[in-house]
């Protein structure tokens, strides 16, 4: 590994200490969330605040479930994120394969366009998107939440970069000689080769859509995703003294699904970020 490393020897303890400090600092807010979420409202508002966990987390969790429809919100988030991620992976693999391995007129110009759109801040266009959804009667539906995330320029770019090296041209030609149609070649040659990148792109897109707050806030009214449920929870928790025990128990609970995903697929995520960077 680490071909261009500045250090040829194993690093000294200072490096480990500095990294450990950074990691502990990174984990502290999460600890704080579950710690405050395990105290009563009164304890959480004390001065100075408690520093060790209390015994009221389940009680606070119940209060969260009484305040917002947490499980429905989680199911909605799952549907939207899963659907959008599947769509992004499918269409990006298709387009990425085409850009990487098929030659056609205008391919360079069109790919340039894709790269350019990666830099366009499309979320500034919420007003027309809102009008669009309202005019088509899609407001307050999960479809409206997912629609703007069904394709991403990043996905196309990422798959193209990956497939450039992942599929030998001879493999495609061989399939063609065997009389396979273009679509069949895509299924039997490109898709199997693209699998690792597809997994990375899926996890990445899933997380991006899951954590999005702005667009669901615009598109939804009664229906809730997990982030919108948090929004409502924060409003409920407001008051003369903010009910941090309730709010932070909710924030902690809402993070658990992604923490599980991270344990399972964190390596994919790390690989995706690092690959996207080198080739980008």
């Amino acid at each position, binding site marked *: 590994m*680490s*071909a*261009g490393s*500045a250090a040829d020897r194993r*690093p000294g303890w200072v490096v480990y200490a500095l*990294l450990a400090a*950074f*990691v502990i600092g*990174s984990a502290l*807010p*999460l600890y704080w*969330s579950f710690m405050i979420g395990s105290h009563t409202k009164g304890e*959480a508002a004390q001065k*100075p*605040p408690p520093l060790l966990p209390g015994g009221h987390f389940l009680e606070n969790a119940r209060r969260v479930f009484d305040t917002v429809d947490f499980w429905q919100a989680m199911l909605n988030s799952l549907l939207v994120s899963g659907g959008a991620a599947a769509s992004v992976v499918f269409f*990006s693999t298709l*387009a990425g*394969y*085409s*850009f990487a391995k*098929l*030659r*056609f007129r205008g391919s360079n110009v*069109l790919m340039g366009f*894709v790269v350019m*759109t990666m*830099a*366009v*801040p*499309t*979320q*500034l*266009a*919420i*007003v*027309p998107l809102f*009008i669009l959804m309202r005019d088509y009667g899609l407001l307050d539906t999960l479809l409206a939440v997912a629609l*703007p995330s069904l394709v991403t320029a990043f996905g196309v770019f990422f798959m193209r970069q990956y497939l450039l090296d992942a599929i030998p*041209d001879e493999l495609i030609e061989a399939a*063609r000689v065997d009389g396979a149609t273009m679509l069949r070649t895509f299924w039997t040659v490109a898709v199997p080769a693209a699998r690792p990148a597809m997994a990375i792109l899926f996890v990445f897109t899933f997380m991006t859509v899951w*954590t999005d*707050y*702005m667009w669901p*806030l*615009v598109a939804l009214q009664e229906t809730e995703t997990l*982030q919108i449920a*948090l*929004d409502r929870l924060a409003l409920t928790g*407001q008051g003369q*003294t903010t009910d*941090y025990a309730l*709010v932070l128990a909710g924030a902690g609970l809402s*993070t658990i699904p*992604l923490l599980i995903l*991270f344990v399972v697929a*964190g390596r994919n995520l*790390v690989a995706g*970020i690092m*690959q996207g*960077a080198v080739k980008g």
Partner: protein
Amino acid sequence: MLTEEQAGEVKPEPAPPTTDRRLLRRQRRSRWDVKLSPYLYISPFFILFGLVGLYPLLYTGWLSLHDWDRLYYQQGEFSGLENFRFVLNDPVFIKSLVNTFSIFLMSSVPQVIVAVCVAALLDTHLRGRTFWRMSVLVPFVVAPAAAVLIFGSVFADKSGLVNAVIDGLGLEPIRWHVDRWWSHFAIASMVNWRWTGYNALIFLAAMQAVPRDLYESASLDGAGRIRQFWSVTLPMIRPTMIFVIVTSTIGGLQIFTEPRLFDDTPNREGGADHQFMTTTLYIYVKGIEDQFYGRASAAAWILFLIIVGIALLNFAITRLLTRRSGS
């Protein structure tokens, strides 16, 4: 690459007129297959992007030049630059722009510096490197909405952890939610928290791509670790530096979730005095809550142009600076 010509070659010899007509038809179908498939495969992206990306962006431009009847939901008359004039004369909009820049600077500058340092730490022969790489990414798993609520409590004016520490040091507690610049600091710190590890991994990837012999020759020239970092690593990761700075500019200037949810007043318009309202929040409040579509769209276009401008400027400055330090 599979070209059209090659694809034609792999087909059987051109059929003489006596051959089965079915073969001819299949050949013709195959030729169309080769010609059209590439376009077919990329078309879903372009169609969907056009619908939910490009069209809304252009529509924003059109809306910004028109009046809008809020009572009857009807497109009003062409009003020229009236919406732009209104927005640019709106003190709240100007305030939101200043807030956006202040939060952006407080988050991007320290973030890039710390991320490069963390990447340099990770770019050593660590034991358990997968563990360390995954560990720095943990904050990225926490959704911004959850992160703001957590940091809102850490920076709570009365019961927060930070104020408890400040109080313990015998200093005057800070009103994080009220004081304008301190509220920017609190918001910037949650952005930094979530993104530093992520950017460190991007820098790490770039550092690992630096050819090792560059370090060896620098070492032969008598350059120590620090000197190698300045004269080899930093210049070599310049393209990645530009990439990270440009993407964090695009993202950072659109910051919305944090200022929206950091607010502990029920209006949630970036504090009682809009002290931490960002421009994207302004667009949301004007466009979605108050339904001034034209004004919100004008504000969106102004921010859009600013973002593109700053991204280009960043690109130029980073090139200039890193080239100089590299020589």
